[in-house]
């Protein structure tokens, strides 16, 4: 029990008659980097705000180290937040912003100055103490926001899409820095993002959400390789999702071919969804291929080419470092390990 620092039990939240969270259950382990991932409006920010104390759940309980904290105001919680737009105090300097939480705690001046200095050093902002907030760049403001939260030594740090406003290069750098910081300080991070790549890069655990419901909880590798449903498969990375029939354990029929695979336990002749990642589709000569098709389009993507290959009843997305010219007849091979079978969803 003690390993779960935060638990959400049967949480419901409704805004103006629209359900935002539906019977949500989640536990967060101590010292893990957990990411709430989903499209906008999926309830991930609301979840974070419930943990932060800015919203109260309509139903269900929030537990912190086993104690119910549903109505505990934010200033009494051992969590700190890095806000989406940083929410730095414009009337205070960098150092005063960072010291805000410590001043409230009436910490003595010397210790406080020491801590602020150490923290600014940690986020590479030494020497910025007396700068005004408005004179900082987006990346620097972001670091101040992180320093301001971390200096209070929270048990849990909540981050609400903190990298959204940064350019790609800076975002990548900050992803690695944040991950390093989390490992060094041993603080539980709860990170909200809609960027699946960001989630895969940084997280120990990813929680994929859609329309107020958790779709899947797992490690980045699990989520990527073993998506539990169509939504997860589509949201995390790109994928080919084909209708298939599970003929028997380890044998699936789709696209007019019987593929050997590694999945079992679906029963015999069951309709299933088959997920194949574009990088797992191998292009070979038509004679060698399990399926034959024609290259319809080729787009250069930097590291790889993205090709659309049309076979009898499906257009395959293929990622390959080798290019085939448009109009070429090719064969397609898919290995048993690259086939992921999902149970058909009722409404899909």
């Amino acid at each position: 029990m003690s390993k779960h620092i935060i638990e959400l039990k049967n949480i419901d939240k409704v805004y103006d008659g629209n359900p935002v969270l539906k019977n949500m259950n989640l536990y967060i382990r101590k010292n893990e980097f957990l990411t709430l991932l989903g499209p906008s409006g999926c309830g991930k920010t609301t979840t974070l705000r419930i943990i932060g104390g800015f919203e109260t759940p309509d139903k269900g309980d929030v537990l912190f180290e086993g104690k119910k904290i549903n109505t505990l105001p934010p200033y009494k919680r051992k969590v700190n937040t890095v806000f989406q737009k940083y929410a730095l105090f414009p009337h205070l300097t960098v150092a005063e912003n960072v010291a805000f939480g410590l001043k409230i705690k009436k910490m003595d001046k010397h210790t406080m100055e020491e801590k602020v200095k150490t923290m600014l050093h940690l986020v590479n902002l030494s020497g910025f103490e007396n700068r005004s907030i408005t004179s900082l760049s987006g990346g620097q403001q972001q670091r101040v926001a992180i320093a301001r939260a971390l200096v209070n030594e929270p048990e849990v740090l909540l981050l609400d899409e903190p990298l959204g406003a940064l350019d790609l290069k800076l975002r990548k750098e900050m992803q690695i820095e944040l991950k390093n910081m989390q490992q060094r300080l041993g603080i539980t991070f709860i990170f909200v993002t809609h960027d699946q790549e960001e989630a895969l890069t940084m997280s120990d655990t990813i929680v994929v959400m859609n329309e107020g419901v958790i779709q899947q909880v797992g490690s980045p590798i699990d989520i990527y390789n073993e998506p539990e449903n169509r939504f997860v498969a589509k949201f995390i990375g790109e994928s080919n999702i084909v209708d298939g029939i599970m003929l028997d354990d380890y044998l699936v029929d789709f696209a007019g071919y019987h593929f050997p695979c590694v999945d079992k336990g679906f029963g015999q002749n069951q309709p299933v969804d088959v997920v194949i990642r574009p990088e797992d589709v191998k292009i070979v000569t038509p004679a060698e291929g399990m399926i034959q098709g024609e290259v319809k389009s080729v787009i250069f993507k930097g590291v790889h080419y993205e090709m659309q290959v049309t076979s009898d009843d499906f257009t395959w997305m293929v990622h390959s470092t080798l290019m085939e010219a448009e109009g070429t007849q090719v064969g397609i091979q898919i290995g048993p390990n690259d086939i992921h079978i999902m149970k058909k969803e009722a409404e899909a």
Partner: protein
Amino acid sequence: MNKKWISAPYLVWMVIFIVVPLFLVGFYGITVRTDTGFVFSLEPLQRCFEPTYLKVLGRSVLLAAISTVICLILGYPIAMILTSKDFSDKNIYLMLFVIPMWMNFLLRTYAWLTLLEKNGLINVLLQKIGLNPIHILYTNQAVVLGMVYNFLPFMVLPIYSVLKKLDSSLIEAAQDLGANGFQTFIKVIFPLSIPGVVSGITMVFMPAVTTFVISRLLGGGHYYLIGNLIEEQFLSVGNWHFGSALSIFLMIIILISIFITSHYETDKEGSVGLW
């Protein structure tokens, strides 16, 4: 780009109704009339420093200051209530507050006259419930009451507009960092609303210190406030020189106070107030 002529009517208007009168005030303020015509003299300005008149000025500044402080104490909470979540989507409350301002200033002040009279509505009601009647008409209290009543919206609106624009995530950030409601107010909300407060103070203090209608109707007496004094010099005494000198004197005081407050008013993102 060559549309400057559009501003010509305005320029003419300004010259006739602002520049020329100001020039005349300046001219009368530093001259006296003799048999041979207008002669330069500092006598009218010197007269302003006579104890009788300094006392009037002192009373004007004091009553205006008291009214401003009361407006601030009343106005800030009103502005906060108007911006709070429960009220923000209901413009009706703001409307209720603004509607009295559509009515004529004189009418509103006359209304108080009848309310405060010896046998006015307030005293009748007080006697009905067995309390002693109050007699504040023609006293300082009545003048302050009139000023507060008339100028309160000028305090509320600039503070309201600043608080309305205040990013709610800053308040959440303060709470997140451990500040309770009171600490959040002292450390975040109030410091960020100072431009509005300064605007409000300026907008209440200036009309309050120059008013002559409120003091005439509710204050009684002759040389009650400096506004009355100036009015008298022009309309009944007929000493335009002394009236002008007093006006200059008052303008200098107001300019100094604007200069002091404007120092606090602009923040880094430009002026937030109404000026």
